[in-house]
């Protein structure tokens, strides 16, 4: 199911939280929704779910607004920052309540509890749960309706490294099944190995909306060789873009490390070092959002 955000605007008093924001979230992929704290990510996601009324603009799921979906929780699952639980309620009872609300059947409670690891603490009162357990319970609640769209606001918050790795694998699997996955984060490392596409906002405005692969721009490989000049000439003959930042060092564009190593062997060129050069998403992000790297 495709999600379309069009011209979304929201002001809180004199503060413009989100301004004219438009982007699509495609099915079968993980879209990273990035921006520094206070950029308007949470407000945008809450507007996407009709929790916050936009000043103007629309959000549609296969053409329909969230509130107009026949069974919203069966179409869209959301994990939002600040969503809580009744402290005296057990984790399983929390799931039972919302399974009832969404008409998802009692069997789904056990299924999502197993899927997210909530089963391990299902009988504990939610007040005793760790932040990571609460995140899993939030995710389990979102999955009750087996939704085709998943919206997650900072889902990695409070998860330990193991939990983050698990979540990453889980969301990749969800996307591989053809679901639409949007994950917001201000921690770029979290999204770097997860997202296929990124939407970056800053001060409530769209900064960037493109595939992850394009975000890095032209990746380069740096090589060190005693025959750098000769190798540069050979590569240039092939039409490869080569730069020589200093003697003995080349920066090669458009070839992988394997391709370069193979070419070097075929030309009888000795290589001392071969390193893919790639700006981290963090650097790209800081550059795009106006921060200093």
């Amino acid at each position, binding site marked *: 199911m495709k999600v379309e955000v069009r011209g979304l605007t929201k002001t809180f008093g004199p503060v413009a939280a989100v301004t004219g924001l438009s982007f699509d979230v495609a099915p079968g992929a993980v879209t990273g929704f990035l921006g520094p704290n206070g950029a308007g990510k949470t407000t945008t996601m*809450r507007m996407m*779910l009709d*929790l916050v009324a936009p000043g103007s603009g629309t959000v549609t799921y296969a053409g329909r607004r969230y*509130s107009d979906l026949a069974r*919203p929780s069966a179409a869209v699952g959301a994990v939002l920052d600040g*969503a*809580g639980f*009744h402290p005296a309620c057990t984790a399983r009872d929390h799931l039972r309540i919302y399974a009832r609300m969404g008409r998802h059947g009692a069997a789904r409670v056990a299924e999502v509890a197993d899927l997210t690891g909530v089963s391990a603490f299902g009988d504990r009162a939610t007040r005793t749960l760790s932040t990571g357990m609460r995140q899993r319970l939030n995710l389990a609640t979102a999955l009750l309706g087996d939704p085709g769209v998943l919206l997650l606001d900072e889902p990695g918050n409070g998860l330990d490294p193991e939990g983050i790795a698990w979540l990453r694998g889980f969301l990749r699997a969800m996307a591989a099944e053809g679901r639409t996955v949007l994950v917001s984060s201000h921690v770029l490392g979290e999204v770097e190995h997860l997202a296929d596409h990124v939407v970056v906002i800053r001060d409530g405005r769209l900064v960037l909306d493109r595939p992850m692969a394009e975000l890095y721009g032209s990746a380069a490989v740096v090589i060190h060789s005693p025959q750098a000049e000769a190798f540069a000439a050979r590569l240039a003959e092939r039409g490869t873009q080569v730069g020589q930042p200093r003697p003995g060092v080349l920066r090669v564009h458009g070839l992988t490390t394997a391709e370069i190593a193979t070419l070097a062997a075929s030309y009888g060129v000795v290589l001392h070092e071969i390193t893919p050069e790639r700006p981290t998403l963090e650097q790209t992000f800081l550059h795009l959002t106006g921060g200093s790297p």
Partner: protein
Amino acid sequence: MMTLVAAEWTRLTSTRLWLWGLLAALGSGALIGLAALVGPENFTPPLPGLETEEGTRVLLGLLGFTVFAPALLGTNAVAAEYRHGTITATALFAPRRWTWLAAKLAAYTVAGLAYGLLATAVAGGALLGAAALKGVTLGLPAGTVAVLLGRIALTMAVYTLLGVAVGALLRNQVLALLVVGAYFYMVETALMLVPGVKELYPFLPGGATAALTGFTYLSEAVATQTGTSATALLPAAAGGAVLVAYALVAAAVAVAAPLRRDIAR
């Protein structure tokens, strides 16, 4: 809608809130029994005894005075959702917000009625028991006592509904509990002391409740203290109608109010 009501019922029974409600209902009924055993004639100031009509009415009125308890339970229904942040999930699963508020109103009205029936059953039994123990007969025929108890049970259901509405409007759990408690125990009694305003008393929730439950002791006591004539209460049926009207207005406002509010947490 029935699934939402069922979900509210699951929510209500998944914490110990229902147990507290049960204890409060049993406790308020038992309180009447205790008061009957002590005997109104031993109160300070002394009141007519259990064997007189007035004495029996005072004890029933005392039970009517505990309607704040189910009102507080109702207040908790919505306010707790805001306090604990479950409002987000609730609004996600039922984005047409009037639906879950209507479901809450329905579920809690039933719960309030159950509370009222339990409290009045215990109180009725305790009154009869206390009278038997003391070797007197109640000052009112059993049929009249049953009717008055039934009206109190209905009043408790209506107050629970009012409580849900107040909780939906104020959202802050502690504030809502304070407002409901302060209104019933201070504001309305204080209003009775104001000469011009006291004419309104029969139309206020407390005055309507007094009319419905036939409990005029409070307004009479105020009249005696201030040396004025007591404000005449509405007939019981009219009092009941006023109370139901309050509940309906409160429910309508409660259902309409959150529609335009952002859930920003």
